[in-house]
């Protein structure tokens, strides 16, 4: 925690110099294709950085990947094809959005599971509390207890 964000800064930028990731020379002439290239790049992790997409990173490897992505797009690949191509080369680690699968079932399902479990817990507690009743009439034992207290008083 100390200097947490500072630390984030250190790693996000320091290691790889100032951030000005996509350089003008890399850009594709066709704005629609360039737009797609940026979309794809934003979902790909810079492998030598901490939690940074290749679109944001200055690292040479990120630059190579950006160029690769643009080459594939120019060659007529769809976005998914480009992504699959990169994953085939570098593995799932390159995806900032983890794929759905057995090994990520708890990751993707976890939040909903916890929410539902919490909702169920609240419902259960409510039901047992409602059993005791707000404003219900007293049962025999409670009547007796009340009478005892009133008598004492």
């Amino acid at each position, binding site marked *: *925690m100390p200097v947490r*964000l500072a630390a984030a800064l250190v790693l996000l930028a320091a290691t790889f110099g100032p951030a000005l990731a996509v350089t003008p020379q890399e850009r594709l002439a066709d704005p629609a294709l360039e737009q797609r290239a940026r979309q794809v790049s934003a979902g790909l992790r810079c492998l030598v950085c901490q939690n940074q997409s290749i679109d944001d990173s200055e690292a040479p490897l990120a630059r190579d990947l950006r160029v690769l992505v643009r080459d594939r797009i120019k060659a007529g690949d769809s976005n998914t094809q480009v992504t699959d191509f990169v994953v085939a080369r570098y593995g799932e680690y390159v995806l900032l959005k983890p794929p759905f699968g057995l090994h990520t079932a708890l990751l993707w399902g976890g939040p909903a599971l916890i929410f539902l479990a919490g909702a169920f817990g609240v419902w259960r507690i409510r039901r047992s509390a409602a059993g005791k009743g707000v404003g219900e009439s007293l049962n025999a034992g409670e009547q007796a207890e009340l009478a005892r207290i009133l008598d004492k008083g």
Partner: protein
Amino acid sequence: MLVEIAHFALAMALGLSLVQMIIPVWGVRRNDIALARVGEPAAISVFVLLLFAFGVLMYAYAVSDFSVQNVAENSHSAKPMIYKLTGTWGNHEGSMLLWVLIMALFGALVALARTSLPDRLRAGTLAAQASVTVAFLLFILFTSNPFNRLDPAPPEGNDLNPLLQDLGLAIHPPLLYVGYVGFSITYAFAIAALIDGRIDAVWARAVRPWTLVAWIFLTLGISMGSYWAYYELGWGGWWFWDPVENASLMPWLAGTALIHSTIVMEKRDSLKVWTILLAILTFSLSLLGTFLVRSGVLTSVHTFATDPSRGLFILIILMLFIGGSLALFAWRAPMLRQGGLFAPVSREGALVINNLFLAAACATVFIGTLYPLALEGLTGAKISVGPPFFNATFLPLLIPLLLLLPFGQSMAWKRGDLLGTAQRLAVAIGIGILATIGIFAATYGGPVAAPLGIGLGVFLIASALWDLGERIIGRASGARAIWSRAIGLPRSAYGSALAHAGVGVTVIGIAATAWATEDIAVMKPGDRMTNGRTAIVLQQVFPRTGPNFRELVGRFRIEIDGKERGEIESTKRTFITRNNMQTTEAGIRTFGVSQVYVSLGEIQPDGSVGVRMYTKPLMLLIWIGSLIMGLGGALSITDRRFRVATPAKARSPKGPQGSTGGPSPQPAE
């Protein structure tokens, strides 16, 4: 010599913390008030000793005493004085010392607080808190001593990481620490209550101001950190879902749930067990954050130095305090008596839903941050969990929470009325819908989700103000009656309205990021870059020398609608004192709450320079909103009921300004 005395003061503080940890518990057991109160002077002394130690370290930085290893490794004589001073906590050892110093400060404040804290509770709290202080002082003395000497002393220091040489370092970490460490007090209160086996509205009232203080500072700390990242990193992002950020977001979410559940506990004597658990979890998440960052598990530069013994030590502290407190909870919590009942549709019910969403959101961040570590540890498979995951899982939990917020805020305690609440909110709902439609029409063809986001933000603000207005005006007639009601309304009612409106402001700022633009070009002096109504003209590029860096400056003229609106200087710095490391200093110019952001890229062989220009409409609202939230929290702390030492039961529960805080008198029944 001074440094050795400071080292000794650390050891003394450890000894006194042990006293503070053990004697009061013994005193409480023997029913000996004098012994039980030993914790108070001990806590104050520990604080004074640590303040001295920290002061000495800061002095060593100020005079660049490179015979102290910590100073030599992290400072430089040419560094500007302000960064020498803030550099005290810009490193592992110094930041840990700041951590325990703030911890001791909170201990001393509990000892000094002139509230109606029962003696047993105060003694137990101080003892529990001291146990954490002891653990961290041991950690500092054995693995992270900032007072180690170097012999011979090097002639010059290594300098501080240039990214940390910024005013942000002066503001962000101390705020964040006060937030983190502040939750240790809440934790200590919970432990004391569990040991004592007694927990009631008095406990909730005693804890609430501390929770609010911690929450305010954590809110501001996270927000200032985000702004720092925004202007320092040079690509205009403000939240990256980085594990380090997540580590601070988790206690914030849990803490936000906690300040809401303590309200229920204070007002209605309900949700006790859950509140205790939350208090434990919130601080546990702070400790987890410490572990994540300090241990090097995140394999990165932000551990300042990776030393496995430190990681192991913190892991032991973590397991001891989290495991121990949860075990204590499992043992004692069933003995706590549950309190007031309430109908599902009621203020309490709404706050339960608030807690459900916040806890699930917190769990989501937890899973997203730790799942890759766990998966790699268990199966060796490496995956990345980045922003797309959090956007897909966190937002679906946050948006319903925000949509429901105004309903909970204006619902009655015990038994509410959904239809009636909706009717009361009709105006705010209408304003929100109109804002959405209006913005959608005005920006037709642009991003679709953004107008909805703006509408949500407007709805939050409008409903907070409307609800407040209704409480003040109500059925009162005449300026005098309204004035007296406005005075009579508890400060915490204003506080919660303000904080909720602040959430709305932040939501608007976040929604508006959808309209931000980005342009990249290679420019030569005289070139112009235009986007919409905004244009920049590169005037000149020139070198400049600072105290410990050289920089290349690009000076731009800004034009909006063709009219000149001032200049921006954007620079690239090279730190000669630190291996020629480079940083970008973005040029930012603010117009109202919108910004134009220019950052400089590589200089090309022909003398031209890569330039990135962003326009950021309404961007500042993100942070202004969080400031408003903090202000709301501060207003709540000044509420009368925290200053007046009256037990809850002594007051009329339905009095106009009575024991209720967040909300006002019960709406007409």
